[in-house]
């Protein structure tokens, strides 16, 4: 057993689940608002922009925390292709959670849209309007959002595979449950 009992820090687990909720809400709001002309379009769009700004800040904090604290090693007996898949998918998740808000922001700037968040917070525009840039950024925001959801589904499937089939402690390393691996707790349990 190389990773059993080794977990992400509390801060990392907290950020993971907080960001997970935000990102799932974000993706559903995104496809939902683009499919409707109902009055809810206006608050959905405002929420999408605000949540995007929040995710960007949280994701950057999370990246810094990850670089500082690292991650528990994957089980030594995990086949190499699965290890590679795990590393690549985690890299993709980090890139996407930071890139998508930036693409959304710049797509709005290059579309000459004022960006107004909850609380009447207004972000100044740092890019001029440009048809070509708006189109490029819009396409990237659109297609990468679907890719993001696909990677998340893969991530969920892999997490459940670790939890239910392999039972190798990988799921527990990020599970939203309190730690029971402190030496004193173990002593008491035994």
């Amino acid at each position, binding site marked *: 057993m190389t990773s059993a009992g080794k977990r992400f820090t509390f801060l990392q687990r907290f950020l993971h689940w907080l960001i997970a909720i935000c990102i799932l809400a974000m993706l559903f709001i995104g496809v939902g608002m683009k499919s*409707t002309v109902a009055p809810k379009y206006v608050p959905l769009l405002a929420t999408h922009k605000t949540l995007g700004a929040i995710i960007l800040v949280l994701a950057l904090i999370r990246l810094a925390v990850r670089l500082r604290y690292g991650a528990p090693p994957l089980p030594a007996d995990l086949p190499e292709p699965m290890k590679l898949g795990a590393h690549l998918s985690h890299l993709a998740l980090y890139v996407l959670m930071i890139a998508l808000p930036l693409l959304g922001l710049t797509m709005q700037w290059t579309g000459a849209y*004022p960006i107004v968040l909850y609380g009447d917070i207004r972000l100044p525009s740092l890019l001029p309007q440009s048809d070509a840039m708006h189109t490029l950024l819009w396409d990237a925001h659109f297609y990468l959002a679907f890719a993001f959801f696909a990677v998340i589904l893969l991530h969920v499937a892999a997490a459940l595979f670790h939890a239910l089939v392999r039972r190798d402690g990988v799921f527990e390393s990020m599970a939203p449950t309190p730690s029971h691996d402190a030496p004193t707790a173990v002593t008491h349990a035994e």
Partner: protein
Amino acid sequence: MPEPSPSRPPIGSLAIIAIVVAAGAGAFAYTAGWLSPTRLTPTKIVDSLAPPGGPSLGHRRNHAKGICFTGVFESNGNGAELSSAQVFARGEYPALGRFNLATADANAPDSTVRVRGLGLQLSTPDGEVWRSAMIDPPFFSVSTPEGFYELQLAAHSKDPNAMKAFFAGHLEFAPFAEWAKTAPWTASYAEETYNSLNSFIFVSGSGAEHAVRWSLLPQAQVVPITQEDLAKLGPNHLAQEIAERVAKAPQRWTMVVTVADPGDPTADPSTAWPPGRRAVEVGALVVQRIEGERNGPCREINFDPTILPNGVHVSDDPFPAARSAAYARSYDLRTSELKYYPYHSEAAGGGER
């Protein structure tokens, strides 16, 4: 080292994983509308506007023909008691906008388009932006976005009874049809009244809310003309005329904010509010310069009516949200069609086609 294998095949666990992934994907597909073919989407509305020959690529999907202007909004301060937006504090604020014709065909002759519009953007030093797109009928043609979509389908239908069926299902359309038939035409954008039609909520500094609509009333003298005589002036008369008129002197409109009484139909732009409502003159739009759309500042702007300053927000009128969703679709389409936009086919000037 051999892998620890479960005592029995993990069929149950794999099934749970498959169910979770499928449920996630299914919920996503449902939210995206992929399982709801009857949902009214921005794409459907925008597509329904296309003329038989297809949309004017690179142009707005509606109000495709237009010309840019710049100028100022001279606020007289009277609106400040209704809304805390800085634009209603006494002062002069930059204005940018677009005179336009309500047609999906960027090359439609002026005399073939009954409805004219004005897109407007007012900016204030506090960084707030107010966009609005107004038209010249005194009330809208239909009472709901769904009705607007049905009108497009009926108008573009090959079924000779389609419009009749639409009339029967949309009694609110009759006054609009009557207006279209009988209202006088003019030969100038400067002689038109432009109405918000949609209602919005103004919020004062003390938090008091009022449902309002607004209008731009021309200070130019209105000279009626028949549709036939307008046709004789040429297919692009309006753009040439406004360019010449503004070159001689700035053109002015008085902005009037009409305040609803309790119980007035704020959610239905096809119904005018009864006469006698409180009307507040809040200032004047002064158009100082005309620029062809091609190289003018309005082409890059989406006159989305939900882009509002603090102190103004949407009401229970369902149209601004629907327009915002559809305008965004139109903007995303036309900005992706830059190569079709006729930048090079004509010298700059008043001859906007």
